[in-house]
């Protein structure tokens, strides 16, 4: 319970009043049980006199009213039983002797409803009398509840199609009763705000708002009348309701009643009376949030059309349905232009309902969506960058609007076709734009939406500005914790670019490259690498023989790598050059391959790869790539291999040199294909190995462990080369000799890990000798002593 002294006082007053009501109600019941109706009426009048209070707030008054009306129910029940000895007419006059108006009228209504129920009199006579007499209560709260009581008491008694109270009355009488009561109640309700009061204005308005349902109840009653046909509604009822709403000029009343009207009556009725309804809404007092009213209307109509597609198609044809959208969108434009004060966020919410309508009712009408975004554009243009105080809200609503079609279509290419949609995105401030385009990109990735034309990709990547490049209007630091995620998202979009036409696909990638390369050093690391891979993959899969196209594609890859290289990414560029070279080689473009290796990879190696470790890694990769390539002429290959060998031998650390040289040895086998020079090749291979062995040998004895490791690697590679590259078995034998000496010098225990490794290698050679006789020639017995 509240600690507000006012509330406490209210609660006290209410409790006291309820107590009196209950006491008097109890008295009334006792008298009724004794069948002493006159005394019961007296008690009842005293009970209702409690409702004469002016001290309770409307809410508490309502609570009191409920208690009292319950007691009144037992009175009417008793009267209806009819053994009280008075005619209905006598009773109807009897209650009017009461000197106080409020109890008198409550009793009159209670008895009047019994009178109608007795069917001794046409309902309309009583209706008319009651409506007339209630005019005596002009106090807003008391009058409102009295009329509410009238409305509730007559609810079951309304003449209507199929009602049993039709004698001498028609549904029109019910309509008159309800409408008059509605009008009277509304007048009092509106007046409520003016009276002097012991509560604050804001509180008063809040309480008044709660009472809105009492007035709105009348509209629901009307809607419940079965005899209220569309004809009557259109020609009479609606006009009268709207006139009252219009005339009262009260913001709160107009707002609530219009909404109630829309909710109470069937959507079919609204559809038929749309122009009238819309006209009235437009004329509502300034300050009424008509956007929300129209929004509600649109929602209802959409739901109706959606639920009854066949109905509207049959009766009015599809054209009619489309008209509704156009009618409503034109109307929204009108609302914006004719109302002096347009609250943009509300306007956007309204446009949102329109958008929902399109999706609910006209899912195929993509152009409608564009019309809607044109509206959005018009409304937010010039308001998105903090010009107005409600900017944040505008942006929030705009964001909602932009996300809806994304979620609905699940295909961003549809959106890219909508020029107004993209136009709206473009005028958003940076952060907001970034958010929206991120969602856009995410949507494409999630839905695996393929982007198949250069134009689409061009448009999309322009739109994705904040993700793809540094924007003029950027705020704060782009390279924050989200940067990584964002760029990965952009990168994953590359896999969506696709066109079965190889050339188009290349053009798409080329367009993408143009956009990406403008993205700055940090971005291209993320974007260009996948672009290069995507290009290379495309080339490999394409199966095309068109060298011109292939060259174009490779050139694109090359340019991308160059961009990366100039962005200061030597390691990754080096590797990508190798990939490009491999691709070119496999496609039979040795010149391009050669250029990638020499002008690309090796230049980078020479100029920019600095750390010994990286240089070593690079060379190992280079050797591996070279080993895969078989497109070169002998001379070119020779040059490359020799160059490689020289480069390897210039590595800083001996162990790097040793390993690299060992690897280089493997390159020579390719030379076998060139035929005549195989002895030279074999010799060179042997040279490299023995040079490597010497290098190992020359290392400081402190590095025994490392030395053993290196020599073992060499030995293993030698074993491989015998099989793969026709290495002279004697070379391997001598390698074994070197190893033996080495282990002996190092006094390595024959149970150490390296020793065990060596044993396994020997065992392997032994095994292999049964498959390849070359292995049989390897002298492994020289090691017998060593392992004995």
């Amino acid at each position, binding site marked *: 319970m509240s600690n507000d002294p006012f509330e406490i006082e209210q609660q006290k*007053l209410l409790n*006291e*009043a309820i107590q*009196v009501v209950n006491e008097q109600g109890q008295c009334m019941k006792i008298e009724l049980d004794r069948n002493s109706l*006159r005394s019961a*009426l*007296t008690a009842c*009048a*005293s009970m*209702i*006199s*409690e*409702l*004469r*209070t002016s*001290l309770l707030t409307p809410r508490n008054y309502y609570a009191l009213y409920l208690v009292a009306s319950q007691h009144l129910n037992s009175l009417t029940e008793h009267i209806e039983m009819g053994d009280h000895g008075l005619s209905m007419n*006598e009773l109807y*006059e*009897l*209650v*009017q*002797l*009461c*000197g*106080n*108006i*409020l*109890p*008198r009228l409550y009793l009159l209504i209670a008895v009047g409803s019994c009178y109608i129920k007795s069917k001794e009199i046409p309902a309309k006579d009583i209706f008319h009398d009651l409506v*007339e*007499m209630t*005019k*005596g*209560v*002009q*106090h*807003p709260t*008391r*009058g409102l509840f009295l009329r509410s009581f009238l409305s509730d008491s007559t609810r079951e008694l309304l003449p209507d199609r199929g009602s049993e109270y039709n004698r001498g009355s028609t549904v029109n009488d019910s309509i008159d009763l309800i409408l008059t009561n509605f009008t009277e109640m509304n*007048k009092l309700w509106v*007046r409520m705000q003016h*009276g*002097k009061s012991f509560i604050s204005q804001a509180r008063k308005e809040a309480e008044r708002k709660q009472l809105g349902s009492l007035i709105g109840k009348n509209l629901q009653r009307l809607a419940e009348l079965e005899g209220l046909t569309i004809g009557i509604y259109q020609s009479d009822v609606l006009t009268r309701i709207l006139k009252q709403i219009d005339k009262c000029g009260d913001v709160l009343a107009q707002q609530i009643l219009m909404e109630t009207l829309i909710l109470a009556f069937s959507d079919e009725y609204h559809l038929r009376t749309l122009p009238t309804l819309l006209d009235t809404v437009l004329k509502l007092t300034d300050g009424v949030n008509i956007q929300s009213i129209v929004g509600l209307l649109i929602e209802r109509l959409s739901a109706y059309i959606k639920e009854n597609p066949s109905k509207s198609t049959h009766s009015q044809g599809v054209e009619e349905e489309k008209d509704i959208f156009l009618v409503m969108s034109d109307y929204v434009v009108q609302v914006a232009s004719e109302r002096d004060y347009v609250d943009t966020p509300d306007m956007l919410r309204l446009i949102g309902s329109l958008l929902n309508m399109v999706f609910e009712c006209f899912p195929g009408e993509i152009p409608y969506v564009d019309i809607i975004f044109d509206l959005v554009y018009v409304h937010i243009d010039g308001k998105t960058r903090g010009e107005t105080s409600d900017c944040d809200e505008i942006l929030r609503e705009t964001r909602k609007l932009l996300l809806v079609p994304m979620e609905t279509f699940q295909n961003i290419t549809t959106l890219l076709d909508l020029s107004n949609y993209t136009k709206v995105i473009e005028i958003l401030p940076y952060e907001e734009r970034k958010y929206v385009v991120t969602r856009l990109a995410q949507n494409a990735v999630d839905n695996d939406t393929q982007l198949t034309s250069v134009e689409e990709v061009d448009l999309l990547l322009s739109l994705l500005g904040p993700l793809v490049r540094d924007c003029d209007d950027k705020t704060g630091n782009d390279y924050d914790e989200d940067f990584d995620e964002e760029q990965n998202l952009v990168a994953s979009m590359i896999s969506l670019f696709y066109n079965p036409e190889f050339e188009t696909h290349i053009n798409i990638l080329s367009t993408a490259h143009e956009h990406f390369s403008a993205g700055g050093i940090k971005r291209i690391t993320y974007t260009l690498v996948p672009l290069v891979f995507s290009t290379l993959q495309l080339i490999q899969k394409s199966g095309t023989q068109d060298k011109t196209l292939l060259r174009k594609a490779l050139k694109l890859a090359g340019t991308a790598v160059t961009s990366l290289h100039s962005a200061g990414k030597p390691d990754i560029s080096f590797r990508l050059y190798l990939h490009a070279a491999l691709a070119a080689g496999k496609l039979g473009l040795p010149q391009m391959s050669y250029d990638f290796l020499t002008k690309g990879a090796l230049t980078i190696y020479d100029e920019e790869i600095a750390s010994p470790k990286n240089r070593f890694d690079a060379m190992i990769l280079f050797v591996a790539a070279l080993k895969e390539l078989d497109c070169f002429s002998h001379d070119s290959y020779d040059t490359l291999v020799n160059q490689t060998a020289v480069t390897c031998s210039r590595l800083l650390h001996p162990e790097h040199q040793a390993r690299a040289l060992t690897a280089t040895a493997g390159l020579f086998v390719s030379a076998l294909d060139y035929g005549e020079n195989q002895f030279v090749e074999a010799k060179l291979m042997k040279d490299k190995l023995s040079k490597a062995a010497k290098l190992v040998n020359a290392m400081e004895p402190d590095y025994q462990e490392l030395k053993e490791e290196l020599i073992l690697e060499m030995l293993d590679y030698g074993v491989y080369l015998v099989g793969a590259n026709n290495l002279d078995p004697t070379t391997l034998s001598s390698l074994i000799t070197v190893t033996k000496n080495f282990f002996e010098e190092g006094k390595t225990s024959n149970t150490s890990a390296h020793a065990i490794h060596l044993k396994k290698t020997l065992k392997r050679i032994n095994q292999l000798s049964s498959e390849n006789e070359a292995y049989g020639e390897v002298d492994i017995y020289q090691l017998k002593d060593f392992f004995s």
Partner: protein
Amino acid sequence: MEHQLETEPGVLEGSTMFEFSFDNAEKPFESYNGMNVRLRYFLKLTIMRKFAANITREHELWVINYPSQQLSPKNPSIKMEVGIEDCLHIEFEYFRSKFHLNDVILGKIYFLLVAINIKYMEIALIKKESTGSGHNVYNESDTLAKFEIMDGAPVRGEVVPIRIFLDGFDLTPTYNSIHSKYSVKYYLNLVLVDEEDRRYFKQTDIQLFRLPPENSKREGFAQLEDPDKQPPSKRRKKKKSSKSKSKK
């Protein structure tokens, strides 16, 4: 008028019956029991004795007169516009000015201008009894009933109905200068009370008459107890400051 029942003196023993008749005894006025005046008809029996005081007994008769001739069918309405400049303008209308004792007073009040906060409006039924004649007239009023006809403040343009059943009140017809001794008149006093408890009122003369029972369909029934006697808890009670309003 006097009748001698037993002309011979003698002794009365036991129960004896005498027949008598006052033919054409005039009873021009109705019996009336007012505040300061009473009109009585009674039989007075006197037994005269020689040696002791006479014995007298009275038996009252209540006389009601139905109008012998048809009342004039003219029954004009009472219509009046009253108000205080820039403050309040109302027009009230009683549809008739003459009522029989079981009649209904019907009427309407039109609010033409309301610039004060009206709290409620009531109509009081007032009986005014004048006794004496010439310089010695003594008037006494009695408010028979107050009948609330409006609760709260109306706005301009509102029309509030009046409907008062006279059944519930103890009424007599209007008496005009009965035997040149007294008159009884009835007034309707329309009273408006504002939030500051200022009262604005206008008194209007009405005429009451008696209808033969066959013409008066209504039967009297008990008036409901006035709930005003049990005010809602906490109702503010202030001394009312009276203020007469002038006629326009």
